[in-house]
Structures are given as structure tokens and as C-alpha cells.
């Protein structure tokens, strides 16, 4: 039961991730009840009402995640009042179930089955209703069942990708890139600067070392080679850092998604002179 509920809420939470808040209806793809009904254009209220419904729905999801089922129930009921979506009824049923109100849960699940078209997991929901009815008859509460071994609950959703590997890999890569850019760049750059200083001393400092023009040319060539090496090293190191940061950002975004369902959009960018990624979203 818990798994079912969590799976549902997570699934509905995914809606917020997958769709912008202004989307008209949640898309409960992992719901035990199956694919939800697409929004019927005729039922679409004005945007303000829809927005309020979505806000209540989102708030209900958060409260459900925090095990504040009574509050979540209120939120889902408010959402259902504002917008007639069968999916709200399903979540209302889940909340009643959590609140040990099997009769009300049965009513909500039944409403869900009646009003939703083409429920792909209708058998599961019906089975859930039957199980709740059996509990009513035997005087048990859903919470008692939760302590037992659920046998008829849908399989838990696949484990969300937390992005931990990306975070670690990205951090390591960024560190390696930074070390390469800083170490190599600084080392080669300072070596190039020494050559530059030496050449300045030859040309403006009286050439105390009696360097020949050939020697000065060699010094210049060497300095330019070092400078090129510095630029390449910094560029490669910087590219590695960017790659690492990108991985890190993706990993963090996935982690946040998995944890709180927040949205994040990572957009790679490629220009004539630079490459990188832009991370936008709500943190």
C-alpha cells in the first residue's frame, strides 16, 4: 500500500517535473490506475481556475510526500472542486486510505473508475476496492493492512536516477580539468613569462648575459611554444572543467528531481569561441 501510494505520488510529482506548471492537467503515467484521461477541451475552465487547481494539486503532492495526509486530502479535494479530473479522485482515494477511511477511499476509487476512460489498470484498482471492502467488513483498517504484506499492490516504480554517479564523476572531472588548467597553465605560463622577461632584459636591459640574436630568437621561439602550450593546456583543462561541471549539474538536477521533483533544464550551448552549458530552473 505504501509502495502504491508513494509510486502514485512520485508519478504525479513527475508531472510537475515533466510539464510546466501552466500545463492543464497532470499526466499520471505511473499511476496504478493507468494512463489518465487526457484533458477534455470542453472541461477546461479558465486559466485562473486551472492554475489554482494545479497549485492545490502540487501542494497536495508535497503534503502527501511529507505524510501530511489530512492536508493532502484537503488539497486534492480543493483541486477536484476547481477542476474535474478523475486523477484527483484517485489521489483522494489514496489519502482516505492513508487516513484509515476505507469507505471514503472506496467511493473515491469508484468515482475514479467511473469517470476515467480507458483505465489500463482497472483490474488493480478494482482489486484495491475489493480489498478495502473486505477490510470494512472485517473491521480492519487500511493501516493494519499496511503493516502486513501487500500482495496485490502494483510493483513499485523503477528506482529514480539520483545522478550520484554523475555528481561524483563530474566533480572529479572538474577537479582534474581545473588542476590541468591551473597547474599546466600556470607552469607553462610562468615559464613563458620567464622567457619573456629574459628577452626583455636582452632588449631593454643591456643584454647582461651577452645573448646573441640567434639565442634571442631561440628564446622567443621557446617562449611562444610555451605560451601555445599554456593556451592549449588551459583550453583543454577548461573544456574538461566545463564537461565536469555539466556532468555535475546534470547529476545535481537529477538528484533534485528524484528528491523533490523540482524542475531543471540543462541546455548545452556551442558558440564560435566557447562551449558550455546553461542551467536554468528553480533551485
Amino acid at each position, binding site marked *: 500500500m505504501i509502495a502504491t501510494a508513494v509510486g502514485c505520488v512520485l508519478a504525479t510529482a513527475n508531472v510537475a517535473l515533466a510539464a510546466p506548471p501552466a500545463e492543464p492537467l497532470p499526466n499520471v503515467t505511473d499511476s496504478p490506475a493507468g494512463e489518465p484521461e487526457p484533458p477534455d477541451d470542453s472541461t477546461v475552465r479558465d486559466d485562473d481556475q486551472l492554475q489554482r487547481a494545479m497549485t492545490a494539486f502540487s501542494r497536495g503532492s508535497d503534503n502527501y510526500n511529507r505524510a501530511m495526509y489530512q492536508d493532502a486530502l484537503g488539497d486534492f479535494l480543493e483541486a477536484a472542486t476547481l477542476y474535474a479530473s478523475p486523477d484527483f479522485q484517485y489521489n483522494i482515494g489514496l489519502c482516505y486510505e492513508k487516513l484509515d477511511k476505507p469507505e471514503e477511499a472506496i467511493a473515491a476509487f469508484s468515482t475514479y473508475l467511473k469517470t476515467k476512460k480507458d483505465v489500463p489498470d482497472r483490474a488493480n484498482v478494482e482489486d484495491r476496492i475489493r480489498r478495502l471492502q473486505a477490510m470494512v467488513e472485517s473491521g480492519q483498517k487500511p493501516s493494519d493492512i499496511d503493516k502486513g504484506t501487500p500482495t496485490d499492490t502494483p510493483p513499485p516504480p523503477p528506482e529514480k536516477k539520483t545522478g550520484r554517479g554523475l555528481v561524483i564523476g563530474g566533480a572529479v572531472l572538474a577537479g582534474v580539468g*581545473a588542476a590541468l*588548467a*591551473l597547474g599546466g*597553465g*600556470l607552469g*607553462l*605560463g*610562468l*615559464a*613563458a*613569462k620567464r*622567457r*619573456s622577461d629574459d*628577452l*626583455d632584459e*636582452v*632588449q631593454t636591459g643591456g*643584454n647582461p648575459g*651577452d*645573448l*646573441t*640574436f*640567434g*639565442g*634571442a*630568437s*631561440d*628564446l*622567443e621561439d621557446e*617562449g*611562444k611554444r*610555451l*605560451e601555445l602550450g*599554456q*593556451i592549449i593546456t*588551459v*583550453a583543454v583543462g*577548461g573544456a574538461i*572543467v*566545463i564537461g565536469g*561541471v555539466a556532468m555535475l*549539474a546534470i547529476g545535481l538536477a537529477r538528484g533534485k528531481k528524484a528528491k523533490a521533483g523540482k524542475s531543471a533544464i540543462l541546455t548545452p*550551448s556551442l558558440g564560435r569561441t*566557447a562551449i*558550455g*552549458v*546553461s*542551467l*536554468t530552473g528553480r533551485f
Partner: protein
Amino acid sequence: MHILAAPALASAFVLSLGCFTSDLDPTQIGVFACNDDPGGECPDGQSCINGRCEGEDPPTVAVGFPEDEQDIGLGDGAIGSMRTVSMTVTGTLEIVPTGGDHVFGEGHLEISVDGTAPIIVESGAGVVGVDVQVANTVGPHRISVKSIRNDGVPYDHEGSTSNRLFWISDGMTPLVGIKSPWPGEEFPLDATEIEVTAAVTPVFALQAANPLGNPEILTGHIHLYYAQSIEMCIADPVCDMNYLATIVAPDMPMGTSGTQTVTLTSSGAGTFPVSVVLRNINHSLYLHDPDPGVEGDEFPQLDEVGILRR
């Protein structure tokens, strides 16, 4: 948040900490060192002078008077006394007083006559006239003019020194003098070839030797010796016959110089004489007889310069 900013700023920071900012300017004068080693050459358009690459127009000096191999004749003074010769020097050296900082093209003159202590000339432009004291003796005489930098270092490029061999002659006595090498010229210790140029006064003709020929008046050739005291050597038949080379100028007018290249043997460091002696065409010693009516007044004609081996 645009995370390009951080790497870009870091890259700029790293690149700003150390980079190559110099531009080699091959047109700079007096900056680069130079030598004879590979890679020691100067940029195009510059000359290696005193170990530095300088401009294309280094300062020059040249003796104007007396002219090369000019016979200024015996003076009015007694033979052997000192006489004043008004010599002239020309060139592009900007003559300034001594003791300043080195400025390429500036300097002073050091004029030495027959190896005497040099006269310092610190002013003058164009044709500079200088009175020098010369011993009024029949024979070859030498004037050396050197251009010296303000810091006392002699310029070492070609044209920075002018040497002049001239004669003081009675008009009858054939004279021989070494024009090259110049006294004090340096050569390495190991065996080395040198070019010896000897001049004779216009009354003498340098002809090819003929061991079977008879001596002719004012005709003959030059024997060249090295590291021998010439007056003692010509008195010693063994030494006399061990000359290094002969110098001739066949089929040339009287007074024509002759040049011969000889190899100097390895030696220790020091000053060694290079000597020339006039010979008859059959190699016998040429003895000038100023007064054929007087017996025993004949004397040889010779010249000697010391070169430095080190």
C-alpha cells in the same frame, strides 16, 4: 546561471598570470651579442663590432698623409734627429673627448709612429691634421691610427684602424719594408698560415731568383725569415740559407710590392720577429754600396716586425 563565466574567468586569470609578451626586434642596434660560433651571427643589415651587433655604418678612420709607400724624403734636420710630419686622418668616427659612456660611432684617435707612445686626438672633424714626430732616418716608417671608444675599448671592426708604411729615403738607397703583418699583430700558438707583404722603394725591382745568374744593380728578391734575429742570422750561413720563402714581383715595375704566404711553425707564447732581407737574384745578400769609390761601406737592406703568438 551561465556557468561559462567561471571557467572563462579562471582561464583569463591563469593566462594573465604568466604569458609571453615580448617581441623580438631584430632592428635594434647594439643589443645582441655576436661571435664566430654558429648562431652568433647578427641580423641582416648589422655588423658584429666589439661583440655586439651594430649598424651597417661603423666608424672608420684612414691615414690621408703620408700616402701608402710615399717617400717623404730626408728632412732638413740631421739624420737621426726627430722631425715633425704633418699627417692627416680622415674617416667617419665622431671624435669626442675621452672618458664618456660608450656611444657607437663616437670615440677618439690613438696615433702611434714607429711603435712610440700614442698621441691622443680628442677633437676634429673631416680631415684632421695631426703633427707627429718621426725619426729622420732612411728606411721604412710606420704610422698606426686606431679609433677608440669613449670607454677606452678599441673598435675592432675592419676600417677602425689604419696603418700606413711610408719611406724616408735619400732617393738612391733601395729600401725594403714589411707592410703585413703589422707590428704587434696577434696569431695563434699552433701552426698557422700568414700572408707577408713586403714593399721596396721604387729604385729596386723584385725579380725571380736565378741561382746561376749574376748579381745586378738594384735588382733581386726578398728572403723571408721567422723567429730569427735577422742581423745575426744573415751573418750565419746556415741560418741565412734557412729562409722561409722568397718574395718576388716578376715582370712588374720597380718598387712593386710582393706578397707571399708562409706557414708559421707552432711556438710558445711571445713576440717573434718576421724579417725580410734584400737578396741578389742568385740569393746572395744584396749589399748597398752608397759610394762605390769607398771600400767596405756596403750594408744590407732589411726590415723586421714583431708579431705576437698567443
